[in-house]
């Protein structure tokens, strides 16, 4: 089963490598990984998605908690949550018909064209991983030149917070 694990990590050199190293060392998978500073300069927020059965996920969360640099973590998939992935996708768009088709599909998915060239469009799209996958599939007719995704960032719904 796919899980979204959200981690508050000490903003220390080497902290990220300990998290990533743990996954390779113990044979766990990382599907996506997203990390950036928070409002507190001493902390980073890291969101990763992984796939495993309940026992594997339990071991993963326990092993992560054991890392000295991990301050707190939560498995967001255990409750209601919001997940967002950001994609930048560059597609070939030459000629009126092709350009119109790309524009139409982008509108349907509520994406934005953020850069325009004589032969290319760069589209920005935000949503769940599933939505992004669907968009890529919908673009099958067009020539995709580049896909960049941020990886999932997630947060719990309602009052529940992950903080010190």
């Amino acid at each position: 089963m796919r899980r979204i694990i959200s981690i508050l990590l000490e903003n220390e050199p080497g902290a990220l490598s300990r998290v990533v190293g743990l996954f390779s060392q113990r044979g766990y998978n990382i599907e996506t990984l997203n990390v950036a500073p928070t409002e507190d300069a001493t902390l980073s927020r890291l969101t990763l998605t992984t796939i495993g059965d309940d026992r594997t996920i339990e071991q993963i969360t326990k092993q992560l908690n054991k890392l000295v640099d991990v301050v707190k973590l939560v498995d967001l998939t255990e409750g209601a949550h919001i997940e967002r992935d950001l994609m930048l996708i560059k597609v070939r768009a030459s000629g009126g018909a092709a350009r119109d088709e790309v524009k139409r599909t982008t509108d349907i998915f509520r994406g934005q064209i953020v850069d325009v060239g004589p032969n290319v469009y760069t589209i920005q799209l935000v949503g769940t991983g599933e939505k992004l996958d669907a968009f890529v599939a919908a673009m099958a007719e067009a020539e995709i030149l580049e896909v960049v995704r941020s990886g999932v960032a997630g947060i719990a719904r309602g009052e529940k917070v992950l903080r010190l």
Partner: protein
Amino acid sequence: MLSGGEMIARALEDEGVEFIFGYPGGAVLHIYDALFKASKIPHVLVRHEQAATHAADGYTRATGKPGVVLVTSGPGATNAVTGIATAYMDSIPMVVLSGQVASHLIGEDAFQECDMVGISRPIVKHSFMVRKPEDIPAMIKKAFHIATTGRPGPVVIDIPKDATRPDAKFEYVYPDAVKIRSYSPAQRGHTGQIKKAARLLLSAKRPVIYSGGGVVQGEASELLTQLARDLNYPVTNTLMGLGAYPGTDRQFLGMLGMHGLYEANMAMHNADVILAVGARFDDRVTNTVSKFCPGAKIIHIDIDPTSISKTVQADIPIVGPVQSVLTDLAEQVAQMRNKDAELPDQGALERWWQQIDEWRAKHGLWSGRRYGESEMIMPQQVIESLFRATGGNAYVTSDVGQHQMFAAQYYRFNHPRRWINSGGLGTMGFGLPAAMGAKLAFPEADVACVTGEGSIQMNIQELSTCTQYNLPVKIINLRNNYLGMVKQWQDMQYEGRHAMSTYEDSLPDFIKLMEAYGHVGMQVRKLDELDAKMEEAFAMKDKLVFLDIFIDPMEHVYPMHVAPNGAMKDMWLSKNERT
């Protein structure tokens, strides 16, 4: 005001460090100079950095105090890696100070540069790199705190040379206490879980207490022994846990696992309740996990939550320090028995003991001879002789292989911290430097290193360190002219093809070698001279003695788990007999 190097020297003193095991080199020369000028802590100069870590490790296992290692950058640091991994696998507290090239050179492939924090990452509990010299005292305090609390383990501090330069001085304050917001190991077990555990434990009809290295490390041997005696429950120890329960006691079943005793493995397999304390259901214990102890409910006490239900699912997990959990558990057990004097079921317990005694009589190690006859000395006889010569009170270190298993089976450890071996990583070359560490800690005690020709040659250069620091340990070399355990597996699984497991005629004359270092070497070839030579060796209190004991090279270690797909109860009992 102190320089970075001086702060390191002072901080180690303030931490109460008794010995530093190390080897100087370019990146740590400022630190060495500071130690030379001001430190009262004796430094032990080894002959290879791996031995520094093993010596510190042996010191720690014998005393319970964290070991300290100081090595230079690059090869100094990489040579220490095997010893750090050894300590990590067996949860041994250790602080390793490694030199690093100057900050401005890091990343430039400078002379003797290597990314020690990166290389050691999977084998340390935590690591630090000094970025500002003024952080050194707090960092050292944190390192000792992390290494020694919770589930102990090694911590590396990587120190760029410029952080220790003598001309940059800082105010030195060694912190009294340390608080790390992201690190708070459990202090007590969950009361509700402990009550449930007490109830289950008292309902048992066929109980076994299975205790591991955590009981030794957690200083809980007395508590465990008391609880087991109060209940009259049988106890088995893991390789790491030997000595936690008295080895010669009636309730002791011996070691369990791959080379565990028949009665210990049979009792485990047939148990209805297993109390696992400070043990981690290692693959060398469980054999095939899906067939592990089919009828047993499992109570698992451990300080490390990741050890619980990692391989074998626990029915009642309890996370906490074994000392505090066992105290609470004993109290709950006492309360429940006060209310109901019938607990536990004495009739069932009596039948269980009868069953165990039948197993003991049938294939137990102590009822009848369990090894073959030979013109030559049998390895088991050597360990029995060692036990007699030392009154069972020696600190026994070992290397890795057949000799290690014979020592674990036949030296009946009655006290914790006397059995010092590399259990998890299985590091050949561990025994001699570990014996040095134990001897430094307890100069008056008998310290024996049980080894073989393969292992001893992996750190034999330390004979020179023993000369320099006058460390009269006794080396018991079980000489069979093979890599014995490799040979055993080749005999059993590769139709006796001994691929690269013999030295042919290349072994040195160990007697002459000992003399070259200023030690004493003795050969033993006949059984009737074994005891006398053993006693003679231990009577030479101020000499390192190497006993080169020629044993039957054909002997295998038994029992041995049948693998793959065997259960705890499936064992080879001799070359042609299995359960």
